[in-house]
């Protein structure tokens, strides 16, 4: 439990557009986004759970608090971060998790990081402390700036504190597996999702669909009956889903790795390479040597987008990590950046060259 606000503030005051800052928590996501630029500004020592009352369903922590610590505290009270932020390494922090805006397997049913952010305290580009949102479940006072921080990759400000909604851990879980080709899996997943079934996550790879159920015991038992498939041994399921969440599963090794975020009903995308599909079909990981422009066009043609998730720096530098934005949207984003970081000192270029 340490408060590093003053030191962080001083570093921000000393920074300039010529000497920008590279904000970093545990560093487990250094690979994510575009090239890292600027002097390292580490937040890992700004730590501590500041408030947590299980009946309020909210936890407030300083940005450098390890995700592991937060999850352990929640687990003691039977609660969890339902969006399952990936833990690419042991030391990852809550600040990094929120700034990166990535969510794990349960995102499709539980919601994304942004859906759980209730409030933030930030230091802006002028080192001013600003608070948005709060610690309560519902809050519409002022524009919802705190949710915008999720996924902004530290380009809008330094997240000092974050309040996040937490949920009870499901009483029971089960995993079923089915042998089926991708097109059939897509069909099934979408049909199931339109029914009141306790399906919370799914993964398809190599002709095998895995479906995770969570909820009341009786509901799981009924769903297992109804869906059929092969019940995966309980001892093996946690490791399987964690492998996807934290990307330790062997599929994720190797580069380049693309992440395609598409409508769940988008048909099988005809691109060469290996695919792993999560989120009921809405997230498709791809190892492919196809031209980046081809991959981006394929995702766009079904109403989605392709992120170059892991790749060597040369490729990222040429094509960018994130799909280019239409000009009117880019202009709005530029103006938002101007408000919070007018001199461009926070993570310049980490998202887009213009931000």
């Amino acid at each position, binding site marked *: 439990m340490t408060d590093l606000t003053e030191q962080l503030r001083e570093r921000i005051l000393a920074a300039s557009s010529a000497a920008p800052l590279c904000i970093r928590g545990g560093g487990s996501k250094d690979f994510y986004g575009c090239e890292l630029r600027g002097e390292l500004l580490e937040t890992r020592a700004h730590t501590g759970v500041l408030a947590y009352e*299980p009946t*309020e369903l909210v936890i407030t922590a300083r940005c450098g608090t390890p995700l592991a610590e937060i999850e352990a505290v929640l687990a003691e009270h039977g609660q969890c971060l339902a969006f399952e932020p990936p833990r690419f390494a042991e030391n990852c922090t809550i600040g990094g998790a929120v700034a990166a805006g990535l969510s794990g397997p349960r995102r*499709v049913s539980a*919601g*994304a990081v942004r*859906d759980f952010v209730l409030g933030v305290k930030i230091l*802006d580009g002028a080192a001013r402390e*600003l*608070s*948005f949102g*709060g*610690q*309560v*479940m*519902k*809050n*519409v006072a*002022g*524009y*919802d*700036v705190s949710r*915008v921080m999720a*996924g*902004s990759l530290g380009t809008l400000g330094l997240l000092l504190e974050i309040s996040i909604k937490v949920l*009870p851990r499901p*009483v029971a879980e089960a995993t079923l597996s089915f042998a089926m080709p991708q097109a059939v899996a897509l069909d099934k997943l*979408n049909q199931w*999702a*339109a*029914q*009141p*079934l*306790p399906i919370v996550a799914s993964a398809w790879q190599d002709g095998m669909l895995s479906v995770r159920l969570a*909820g*009341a*015991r*009786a*509901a799981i038992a*009924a*769903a297992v009956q109804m869906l059929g498939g092969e019940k995966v041994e309980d001892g093996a399921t946690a490791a399987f889903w964690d492998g996807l969440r934290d990307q330790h599963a062997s599929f994720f090794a190797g580069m380049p790795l693309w992440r395609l*975020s598409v*409508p*769940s009903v988008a048909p099988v995308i005809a691109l060469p390479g290996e695919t792993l599909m999560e*989120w009921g079909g809405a997230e498709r990981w791809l190892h492919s040597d196809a031209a980046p422009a081809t991959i981006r066009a394929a995702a766009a043609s079904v*109403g*989605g*987008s392709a992120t170059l998730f892991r790749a060597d720096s040369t490729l990222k530098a040429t094509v960018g990590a*994130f*799909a280019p934005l239409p000009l*009117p*949207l*880019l202009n*709005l*984003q530029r*103006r*938002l950046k*101007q*408000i*919070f970081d007018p001199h461009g000192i926070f993570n310049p270029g980490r*998202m887009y060259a213009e931000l």
Partner: protein
Amino acid sequence: MTAALSPAPDQDDTRRVALLARLLPLLPTGGLLSDPEDIKPYECDGLTAYRCLPWCVALPDSEAQVIAVLRVCHVLQVPVVVRGAGTGLSGGATPVAAGVVLSLARFMRIIEIDPLARLARVQPGVRNLAISEAAAPLGLYYAPDPSSQIACTIGGNVAENSGGVHCLKYGLTVHNILKLRVALIDGEVIEIGTHALDSPGYDLLALLIGSEGMLGVVLEATVKLTPRPTVAQVVMASFDDVTQAGNAVAAIIAAGIIPAGLEMMDKPATAAVEAFVHAGYDLSATAILLAESDGTEQEVAEEMAAMCQVLETSGARDLRVSRSDAERLKFWAGRKAAFPAVGRLTPDYLCMDGTIPRKHIAHVLTRIEELAQQHRLRVANVFHAGDGNLHPLIMFDASRDDELDRATALGAAILELSVEVGGTITGEHGVGIEKVQQMCLQFSADELAAFRGVKAAFDPLGLLNPGKAVPTPRHCSEYRLTGSAR
């Protein structure tokens, strides 16, 4: 506003005439109202204490017309107030005197329902309930269900980030919108969000939702549809003590249950509602909790048993579990009609909307009662207990002596109380004009400046819904001078 700041009346009149001349050819017959009699129905929204006649009301029926109207207003620098159904409770749709009301009431088309993708693409004037009705044959519904859902529009819901009795489990508007098509004040149309679960760049969707019609005009929304649960059941629990009822709310959550709905009504609210809908509410109870469970049959049986047990141990004197869907709807009918029911008892009422940490429910209710007595007014409480979102209804008669002033003062005191216990001045109704001053209480000057920056990023001239939601620095210094702020 001082005379020096507004243009001279004759100059004003010239501008008005010029505006009408430019707008008339853009709109269909009957699509431009300027006769005081015709525009009277638009002079206020659900916050009837504030009224103002605009220069005119535009009722376009195509997107091209909306864009054309915006362009003219932009060029002539005339303020625009967008309006859905006008059910807002914070004055978000209150007109601006020298401005245009842009009504989207004619945009009532559900463009597409895709049952496999579980989404609906709708025009902004589509009523909230109409979406669920259209999706019902497919076993789907639109989850956020404000009590005004028969009337309020999806455009208004997006602008206010509206909630409902089921949002503890199913989320607010912000959790249920995938994509928006938005016209900016200069007529440029942008699309934000996608039918995928996320899109690159800053989350502009989160910014637009809840922006109270100040950043852009919603032309189309893609909403998520949720599979209708197989069964739902509600238990109505009577308590003799508000503290016990408040603690029961926390106890349910501590037991690891997220009810589909968890609502509370105090005695005055129950009395008003029972006289209105005859749902068989317990009139002798000091507080009533309604707790709903939904899901599969087995799930509901399991959860309902657990909830009843918690309620009993928390001191509930009487429990009534709905035995049929008809009975369940009857229990809810009372809750959903609570505002109009209270409205029958009093010429006027103000509906407050603070959200507080659940643990302070009992304390805050007690304080509200004390404050009401100090202001010599009656208050009924009916609220989203699961979310800690209170709706004290302040009853008054605006035609009597200083009752409006006392009601406003009591409202302000309640908002201050919400902030004091770590909550917010508004959970779902928006700031509008009603609470614009109390924004100075909840946010620092720097934070308010950031909001003004966001506004300017979308609307540099400040033409969309001016004077709402974000106070000017002057507002705040005046507020502090009057001594309300600490």
